[in-house]
């Protein structure tokens, strides 16, 4: 294996322009792959973040304060549906704390509001956003409930956006990977054609097809490997450079900085994809000749 890899490296060294073209196209495709994967993964995390936030707020009438047994009974009924993630009771006092926290920069607003003026409420999160409507309808029938609000639209549009990113990204990355694959086949195919006499000689002295193909496959893997490392490095640099902007843009949503383990997994994924595309490209290029 090592001698095949050495032969492959020698061939790469002897045709630097072809190698540069192969690595560039591989880097470009894998960079696109990196970016779209990060956007898809990021939007998935954002979606999860919103999904785990209280999605339904059922406000009681301002003059109605449910007893603790009523609250417990309501919680039990909601949990019995099996569609509820969490149920939190927010008393008038709790609501005032939240209100003050939100308006701490405006003392006038803080002074004007007392706990008695605010409604108590329950915050409910659903296991599946599709159940929001049903849970909201259930809450509306509860005694003392004045108003029910839920973030159906936000979740729905985020879900739509996430799946759009996946579809568009998948198509773009997929088509680039396919183009890259054919370019690798073409570049290694040229090298195979240039080494026709060598391949013929190898066959005549008893080389197996695998032995003849191995350096070409390794060459493809080398292109994939180099492209993957470069694409990942560029992506990481861009991500680090934009970190300040992204953190403020995504205020309150804790997805940045990405965990190093996640980034290393991304690198491994890129290497696996690049090596697969390059290796298969090399194999196809030489197999066509061996069959002919």
């Amino acid at each position, binding site marked *: 294996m090592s*001698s095949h890899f050495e032969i492959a490296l020698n061939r790469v060294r002897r045709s630097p322009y072809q190698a540069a073209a192969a690595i560039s196209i591989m880097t470009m495709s894998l960079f696109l792959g990196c970016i779209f994967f990060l956007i898809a993964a990021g939007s998935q995390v954002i979606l999860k973040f919103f999904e785990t936030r209280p999605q339904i707020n059922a406000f009681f009438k301002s003059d109605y304060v449910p007893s603790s047994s009523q609250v417990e009974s309501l919680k039990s009924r909601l949990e019995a549906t099996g569609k509820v993630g969490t149920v939190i009771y927010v008393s008038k006092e709790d609501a005032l704390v939240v209100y003050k926290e939100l308006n701490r920069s405006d003392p006038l607003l803080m002074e004007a509001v007392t706990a008695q003026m605010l409604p108590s409420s329950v915050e409910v999160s659903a296991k599946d956003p599709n159940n929001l409507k049903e849970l909201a309808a259930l809450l509306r029938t509860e005694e003392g409930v004045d108003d029910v609000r839920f973030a159906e639209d936000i979740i729905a549009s985020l879900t739509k956006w996430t799946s759009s990113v996946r579809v568009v990204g998948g198509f773009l990355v997929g088509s680039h990977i396919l183009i890259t694959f054919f370019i690798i086949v073409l570049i290694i195919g040229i090298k195979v054609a240039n080494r026709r*006499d060598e391949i*013929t*000689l*190898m*066959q*005549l*002295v*008893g080389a197996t097809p695998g032995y003849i193909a191995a350096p070409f496959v390794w060459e493809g893997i080398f292109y994939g490997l180099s492209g993957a490392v470069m694409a990942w490095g560029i992506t990481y640099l861009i991500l680090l450079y934009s970190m300040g902007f992204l953190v403020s843009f995504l205020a309150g949503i804790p997805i940045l900085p990405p965990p190093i383990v996640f980034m290393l997994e991304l690198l491994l994924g890129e290497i696996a994809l690049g090596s697969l595309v390059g290796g298969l490209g090399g194999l196809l290029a030489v197999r066509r000749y061996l069959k002919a």
Partner: protein
Amino acid sequence: MVTAKNLTKKFGDIHAISDVSFAVEPGEFLFLTGPSGSGKTTLLRLILRELLPDSGSLVVNSHDLVKLKKKELPQIRREIGIVFQDFKLLPDRNIWENIAVPLEVRHLPKSQVDQAVKIALELVELSDKPTLFPAQLSGGELQRIALARAIAGKPKLLLADEPTGNLDPKTAKLIFKLLKDVHSELKTTVIVATHNAELVNLYSQRVISLNKGKLIKDSPAGKYE
């Protein structure tokens, strides 16, 4: 070592080999003679299983080449050494690396490859030029390297296709001497396709003569006709 029965190979309407039968015993040395286009090279290509016959049978070293499975082909070819008229040396590899090619494809350990290359280089008397590239050698030296490559793996059968076709008489004589040395030292079966009448007559070995694809004469200790 080689048994051909009613061997026929056509290229379109042309009979390159027509109903040829002969047998070569292990350790034998024979010349395959005839004018250009008589079928010598085609016969060697059939023995090397580069071509398949249209009819007849061909057994090489107990392997029926007609029934041979594709995956068995590399193993059979490792038992055969071949010397080409145009040498077929790899221009981007040095002499040592060229001779090592048939050994490396057998996945032999490096020490074994080095030892075999060294012996082959000594046999063709080119031990002093292992790091030179083919472009730096003369025609005679190139053919000696091609011979060294063919014998490095100690083949049971050595085929030489017009090994002196591109060489001057003196170098041609040297190549023939080396082929004879290989035959006597390694006990290798040697088949030399040639139309060098002078050298064929000099060695008085078995001669199979072909003409227009047909075997016209098979004589022990024969002469070129």
